[in-house]
C-alpha cells in the first residue's frame, strides 16, 4: 500500500515561475553542497576496504553503505538548506498575514525563496524507501511542531506555521496547507491541531484552521479558511459541519 506512482509524497513547496528563473542557482548550489559529504564518505570507504585489500569486507558491507548513503544525503541536504533558511530569515522574517501576489511584495518573494530552498531535502525525505526519519523529521527541523506518536508520513503538510499535537492520525493523502492564493491576494495563516485528533483520508485543512483536542474529521471533507473545530466533536462534509453526537 505504498503511494501512487504519479504522486510523490514530498511536502508541497510551490514556487512562482518568475522567481524560480531568477533564483534557480540557489537550488543547484544546495544539491551540489549536499553531495560533498557523501563523496568524502565513499572515498574513505573505498580506500579503507578496497585499496588496503579487504575486498570481501568491501562487498559484504555494501548494503549498509547504501543505507548510510541515503541518510548522509538526507542530513547534509538538511544542514545546508537550514543554513540557507537562517540567512534568508535574517534578511526578511517570515510572518502571517494577507499579502499581494506580486514579485515586488517582499513577503511573497521570500516565501517563494524559502520554498525553493526547502524543496531538495523534502524531496529526499519523501522518496526514502526506509520508514525512519522521513517527512516528520525534516518538517520538525524546519520549524513545524509535531508531537509524539503522530503518524503523518503519508500526507502533504506545509513546512511552516503549523503545530500538530500528540497521538494524531493524519489520514492517507490528506493535505494540511498553511498558505492560500485568492485572485491577486496571497495569505499565510497558522494551523493548530490539538492532541488525539483523528483525520480521515483525503481531508484538506485550509489556512487558519483550529482543530480542538479529540476532534474527528471524517474522510473526504475540507474546512473553510479560519474555521474553528471544537473539542470532542465530529465534523464532516463540504465544508466541514458539526455532526450529531454518536449514540
Amino acid at each position, binding site marked *: *500500500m505504498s503511494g501512487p506512482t504519479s504522486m510523490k509524497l514530498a511536502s508541497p513547496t510551490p514556487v512562482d515561475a518568475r522567481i524560480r528563473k531568477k533564483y534557480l542557482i540557489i537550488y543547484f548550489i544546495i544539491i551540489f553542497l549536499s553531495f560533498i559529504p557523501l563523496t568524502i564518505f565513499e572515498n574513505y570507504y573505498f580506500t579503507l576496504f578496497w585499496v588496503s585489500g579487504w575486498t570481501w569486507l568491501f562487498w559484504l558491507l555494501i548494503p549498509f553503505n547504501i543505507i548510510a548513503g541515503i541518510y548522509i544525503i538526507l542530513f547534509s541536504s538538511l544542514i545546508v538548506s537550514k543554513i540557507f533558511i537562517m540567512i534568508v530569515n535574517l534578511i526578511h522574517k517570515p510572518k502571517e498575514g494577507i499579502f499581494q501576489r506580486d514579485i515586488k511584495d517582499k513577503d511573497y518573494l521570500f516565501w517563494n525563496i524559502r520554498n525553493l530552498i526547502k524543496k531538495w531535502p523534502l524531496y529526499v525525505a519523501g522518496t526514502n524507501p526506509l520508514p525512519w526519519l522521513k517527512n516528520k523529521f525534516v518538517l520538525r527541523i524546519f520549524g513545524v511542531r509535531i508531537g509524539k506518536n503522530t503518524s503523518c508520513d503519508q500526507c502533504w503538510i506545509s513546512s511552516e506555521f503549523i503545530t500538530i499535537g500528540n497521538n494524531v*492520525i493524519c489520514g492517507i493523502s490528506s493535505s494540511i496547507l498553511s498558505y492560500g492564493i485568492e485572485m491577486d491576494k496571497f495569505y499565510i495563516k497558522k494551523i493548530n491541531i490539538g492532541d488525539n485528533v483523528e483525520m480521515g483520508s483525503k481531508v484538506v485543512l485550509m489556512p487558519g484552521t483550529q482543530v480542538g483536542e479529540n476532534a474527528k474529521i471524517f*474522510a473526504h471533507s475540507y474546512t473553510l479558511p479560519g474555521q474553528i473545530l471544537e473539542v470532542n466533536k*465530529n465534523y464532516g462534509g463540504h465544508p466541514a459541519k458539526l455532526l450529531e453526537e454518536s449514540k
Partner: protein
Amino acid sequence: MVQLKNNKIQIISTSGIFKDKASFFLLIEFICGIFIVIYTSLWLIDYLLQGFWILWLLVPLSVYGCLYLFTFTTTFIAFLLLRLVNKIYPPKEGIFERDSKGWKFWRYRYWITYLPLWSVRALPLPWLDIAIYRIFGVKLGRNVCIYDGWVDPEFITIGDHTMTSLNTIIHSHLIYNDKLIIQHVEIGKNCIIGPQTIVSPGTIMEEETILGANSITKIGQLLEGGKIHVGIPAIKSIPILSIEESEKKLAKLGVDKYKKKQEGKIQEEKKE
C-alpha cells in the same frame, strides 16, 4: 461478517501507519535484496576491472536488470516472511482492539509488504505491481489497472477489465478510535472507479458498476450493477446512458449548448 451498531462510524475512513519495531522486517528484505543484486553482477564487475572495455556497453542493461532483480528478491523474501507470520496468526476479518494480537499482526503484514510495493512502483514499469499483488494473495483478474491508487495487499478481489483512476483508495482496513476494522472488499468485472474516491472495507461492487469521482462508499455497502453511484457517502445512483441519449436528456432539460447541437443534428437529417 462484521456488524456495526453505530451508523456514524460508517463515514469515517482513517488509515494511519504506525512506525514501530515491526518495520525492521523491511530492513531484512532491503539488505538481502542488495546482497543478491551485488553477487549476481560480480562477474561483470570482475571483467570490467580486468580491462574488457567493450563490456561497459552492457552496464546500462545490467543496471536495468538489477532494479527488477531487487524488487523480485524483496518480493520473494517478503512472501516467505508473510507465510511464516500467517502460520503463527492466520489473517482474519473482524474488529480488533488496539494492542491486541490482530492489530499487532496486521502491522507486521503491512510492513512486510511495504518495500516490494514501494520499489515496484518506483520502477520504470509500474504496471508490474499487479504481479506482486497476486503473489501476496490479492485476487486480480485480467486487464486490471491499479498502479495509481493506494490498494491494500490483502482481503481484496478485483474482477476482469476493471479500471481505477488517480488517487483512489481501496482499503480493506480502517482505524476508528482504538479499533481496527478489517473486512473483505469485492469488486466485480468491468467496473470503473473514479478519481479521488475511497472504497471502504466491506464494499461489494457488482458487475459493470461505475463509482463516480469524489465519492465514498460506506462500510459494507452494496453497489448495484449497471449503474453510476455518486455522493459522500454514495447514495445517489444514476443509470448509465450513451452519449447521444444523455445529450438528448440535457437538451430536454434546456441546456443551451446541447439544445443547439440537437437542432443542428435534426436539420442535417432533414437535408439528407
